[in-house]
């Protein structure tokens, strides 16, 4: 039963993809659309396969490094800050308006300023990813930490538990579903931030390659890079979901 469901989960979106690709291919061929406007899926695949080693691989590694470093640093900081805010109401009152502000701030607009401080290396982009990831993880975790059944807190009070004990035994595990929502969104935000930062100013990375290939009207390669970025986002999301299912085993 379970196996059949998971095959369905993989098969259904795959069918959509195949239908979409064949449809696009047919439309492009039928209306004779120029490759400068929209390259055919088959052309994207064949050109990218040929050029992958020389023109894409090293940039993919750079972008992955930025996303993963930023994600791994940003997620725990976001959870930790949310924990602090949830346990000290005065901090929450003082900071929560700014958290929402930070969620909506596109940090790529600050990339040129960061460059003045940190130079042109990867660190600028990693910083942009971290700053974009922290607030969204924080916002979701915070709503989880604040959303505890009162009767569970009463239980801990009846045992004379300390604040730390209550947080570890009740508040944190209770909030895990929302924390994971935050982490999943954090993965998406990390990907967007990394590529945007590469747009704003970088000589390497997939974001930079999209601009570079576009300027030479290498539309197949440009679209190829866009698809690879989408694939990174999906993979990060699914990996997090997998970890979530392994950890939250009590909810079935």
């Amino acid at each position: 039963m379970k196996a059949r469901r998971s095959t369905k989960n993989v098969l259904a979106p795959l069918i959509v993809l195949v239908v979409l690709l064949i449809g696009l291919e047919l439309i492009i061929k039928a209306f004779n659309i120029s490759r400068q406007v929209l390259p055919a899926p088959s052309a994207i695949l064949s050109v990218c396969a040929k050029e992958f080693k020389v023109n894409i691989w090293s940039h993919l590694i750079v972008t992955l490094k930025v996303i993963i470093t930023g994600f791994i640093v940003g997620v725990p900081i976001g959870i930790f800050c949310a924990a602090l805010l949830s346990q000290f109401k005065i901090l929450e009152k003082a900071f929560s308006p700014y958290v929402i502000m930070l969620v909506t701030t596109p940090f790529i607009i600050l990339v040129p300023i960061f460059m003045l401080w940190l130079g042109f290396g990867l660190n600028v982009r990693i910083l942009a990813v971290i700053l974009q990831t922290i607030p969204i993880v924080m916002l979701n975790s915070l709503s989880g930490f604040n959303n505890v059944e009162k009767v569970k807190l009463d239980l801990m009070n009846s045992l004379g538990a300390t604040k730390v004990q209550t947080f570890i035994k009740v508040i944190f595990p209770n909030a895990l579903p929302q924390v994971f929502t935050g982490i999943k969104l954090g993965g998406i935000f990390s990907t967007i931030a990394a590529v945007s930062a590469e747009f704003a100013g970088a000589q390497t990375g997939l974001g930079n390659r999209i601009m570079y290939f576009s300027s030479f009207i290498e539309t197949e390669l440009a679209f190829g890079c866009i698809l690879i970025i989408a694939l990174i986002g999906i993979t990060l999301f699914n990996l997090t979901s997998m970890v979530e299912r392994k950890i939250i085993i009590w909810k079935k």
Partner: protein
Amino acid sequence: MSNFKIELENIEKTYLTKNGPLIAVTDVNFGVEENDFVTLVGPSGCGKSTIIRMLGGIITPTKGKIIYSGKEYTNGIPREEQRNLGFIFQSHNLLPWFTIRKNLELPLNIFNLTGEKWQKSIESLLQMVNLSEHAESYPTELSGGMQQRVGVIRAMVHNPEILLMDEPFGELDAINREQLDIELLSIWEKTKKTIIFITHNVSEAILLSSRVLVMSTNPGRIIEEVKIDLPRPRSLEMMNEERFLDYEEQITNLIGELNLEMVE
């Protein structure tokens, strides 16, 4: 010097609400002797939960003092005293992310009780309620009655002298509730804990306790104490005896009068 295990003196609890202060309970005075089984019964809103939550140290009285084994507390129950209490909630209140065993270990962890002796206490309690083979299950995998049994023994793993029970079987159906009442009585006979039990079910109160404290609303207070002179061990068959029904009528009338008062 009284020989009460638990004593409440002039206890009052006031909540601050939007419409000003609201007196939840006032002028609460009673004592419970060691090994006694006392029930508080009354309509909803009479503050019976407030009283037991103050006894458990979950909330602090606004006025008055609580005396445990001769020690007076006016400003809430400290942690050292909570070590002697076991609180049982209306819902089973198990933590869904822990297995049954982990749930039972919770009080031991909080009170820093380590060692073989305490693990054995978990095993024997599980055996007592026939749930040994469910130790590694998660709470959602158990039936309502089983969950509530675990909720009861969780309050006993640290071997407290006093059990505070806040409508513990209120969410169960009548058959399950009566069965758990009988199991509770046999646990009480064996362990000789001091028990304060809250319920809105009059016959449950009579079946279990040696004294029933009847409460009223607006403001919440104790209006009458009814001594239950039925032999022990008690059984469900007693519920059809004349004496039992007399008690039931007496207490229901007391509560009924209250309800009339409320209508006026």
